[in-house]
């Protein structure tokens, strides 16, 4: 896994469980890996003032976001002894129950993956210009804010 060239982290719509399963499968040829840790963000059907979230519509300042994802990746490889790291984020509509964020880290040792994954997910939440619009069942909306 090279970690030097910036890539496009975004994919249109939800991230499917097949995609995730297949990504795990591809790592079975890498026999120096002893531990994988995967974070998945899933859209919640939150109830707010009696209305239920049915989907989140994601937009992003894509160029800056991909640059930030790249910086997070570089700094994670610098801090932690990782074999592989992959990040995928949805754009467009992701329905409640579907997956919008997939972060996958692998290392020879388990302690490393726990620390690295949390570092990466927190950095994504804080530093990457992605905007989620929570769509209610009646088609009204509100803007999501990360805590």
């Amino acid at each position, binding site marked *: 896994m090279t970690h030097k060239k910036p890539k496009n982290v975004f994919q249109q719509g939800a991230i499917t469980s097949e995609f995730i399963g297949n990504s795990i499968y591809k790592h079975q040829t890498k026999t120096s890996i002893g531990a994988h840790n995967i974070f998945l*963000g899933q859209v919640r059907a939150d109830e707010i003032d009696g209305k239920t979230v049915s989907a989140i519509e994601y937009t992003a*300042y894509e*160029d800056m976001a991909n640059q930030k994802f790249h910086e997070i990746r570089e700094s994670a490889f610098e801090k932690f002894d990782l074999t592989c790291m992959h990040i995928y984020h949805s754009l467009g509509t992701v329905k409640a129950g579907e997956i919008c964020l997939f972060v996958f880290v692998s290392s020879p040792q388990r302690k490393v993956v726990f620390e690295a994954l949390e570092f990466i997910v927190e950095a994504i939440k*804080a530093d*990457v*210009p*992605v*905007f989620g619009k929570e769509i209610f069942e009646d088609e009204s909306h509100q*803007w999501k804010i*990360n805590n």
Partner: protein
Amino acid sequence: MLITIKYFGQIAEVTQKDEEQIETSKGSILELLSTLNAKYSDLKHKEFQIAQNQELVGLEAKLTGAEIALLPPFSGG
């Protein structure tokens, strides 16, 4: 100089557009912001950060002619 300004999320709801070009004299981010506040009166009720050339900048930063973006609170993931 002509500067491209991008709007995202709830900021784009206020401006009713995703992007525009504005002719401005060289000055600071703060000066540009005054122009925008005059043009879009609801902007002052909104929380946002400003990026120039894809890096967050403070109000005192000088305009370089690079792309400006008004970014509401991030909510990825």
